[in-house]
């Protein structure tokens, strides 16, 4: 049975379950899958409609996408990776340090990030980018490039 011959509990074997419980587990997993699929389809529809409706880059759209992403991530971690049913202490040992560290990194980027230079520091950027992006924003083509033609038409 086990690779080891000691009295330590065999958690690998203890996590086995019968037909009855398997059925319950499977129905939960499929439900999680359908919810995730619905969220993804919803995101794609919104993302597809965004450019035509002027939603691209709005703060509420960004908030919506990031929140839906976190919902999906939670579904994967808690049900697919089974963390929701592990021992409480283990759950927190995995999640809490990670979340704290991520928030800390974001905080540092937001506060100390100003030292990386300001917009005036953009001297190394190809000036053509600026022209093209401005042209896109104003809804007409700049400089005769055809690369973003389709996009420019959309903005009219």
């Amino acid at each position, binding site marked *: 049975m086990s690779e080891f011959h000691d009295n330590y*509990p065999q958690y690998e074997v*203890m996590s086995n379950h019968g037909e009855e419980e398997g059925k319950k587990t499977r129905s939960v997993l499929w439900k999680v899958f359908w919810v995730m699929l619905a969220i993804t389809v919803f995101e794609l529809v919104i*993302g*597809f409609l965004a450019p035509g409706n002027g939603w691209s880059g709005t703060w509420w759209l960004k908030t919506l996408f990031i929140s839906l992403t976190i919902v999906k991530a939670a579904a994967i971690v808690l049900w697919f990776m089974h963390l929701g049913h592990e021992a409480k202490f283990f759950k927190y040992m995995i999640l809490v340090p990670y979340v704290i560290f991520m928030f800390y990194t974001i905080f540092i980027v937001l506060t100390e990030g100003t030292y990386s230079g300001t917009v005036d520091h953009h001297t190394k950027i190809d000036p053509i*980018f600026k022209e093209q992006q401005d042209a896109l924003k104003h809804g007409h083509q700049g400089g005769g490039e055809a*690369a973003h033609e389709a*996009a420019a038409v959309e903005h009219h």
Partner: protein
Amino acid sequence: MAHTAEIDSKEAWGGGQSPFKLAYGKLFMWFFLVSDALTFGGLLISYGFIRHKYADVWPKAEHVFTHFPFVQQHIPLAYVGLMTFILIMSSVTMVLAVEAGHRMDRKGVITWMFWTIVGGLAFVGSQAWEWYHFIIGTHDGALRNVWDPATGAYVKQIWHGANMVTNEYGVPQFANYFFFITGFHGTHVFSGVVINFVIFLNVIKGTYQKRGHYEMVEKVGLYWHFVDLVWVFVFTFFYLL
């Protein structure tokens, strides 16, 4: 799981048992995943930082990723939607393989792991296709100042596609982050497929049936779900926002 007897929290750290009620292999797979998640977290946060820094010249994903196989029209998001569907689907088949393993159902594990491997290969293939079209670029291209090492000066010319220094979509940083993060994720998917395949062979051989548990399937399953988890974030930050 419900099968583990309730342990008094005061007794839990007394030795002779795992206070986490987990076998060591699974415990250390989780530790590894946390460290890997820190790497991806760092990459994505730095991506967000650079993107914000160059917000005025950052390309919009809906203008860049518009191709779909066998279709001439430009359909933004459709292809990456398909890739996301493939990966979520393969995550479900993986978790069903783990569940079958808990019932010692060898045939079930073989079936579901097979589909997981198929899904993984389909995803890696899709990513290769996506990279290919990103690198060769569009037919029209865009005007760029391209560095000419022979003369040591920038030359204005129409440029197609992307590499690490010049790309037609916008600032070079965009292509750099795209290559690095999706490449790093793609490497994870590829190694996941290889590891899944090794475990798949062991399942066919009956190794875990003899051992009395399918925890190895569960461990590679954790890794596979982690790959899916990362993709959920990459999908949002590169394609949706």
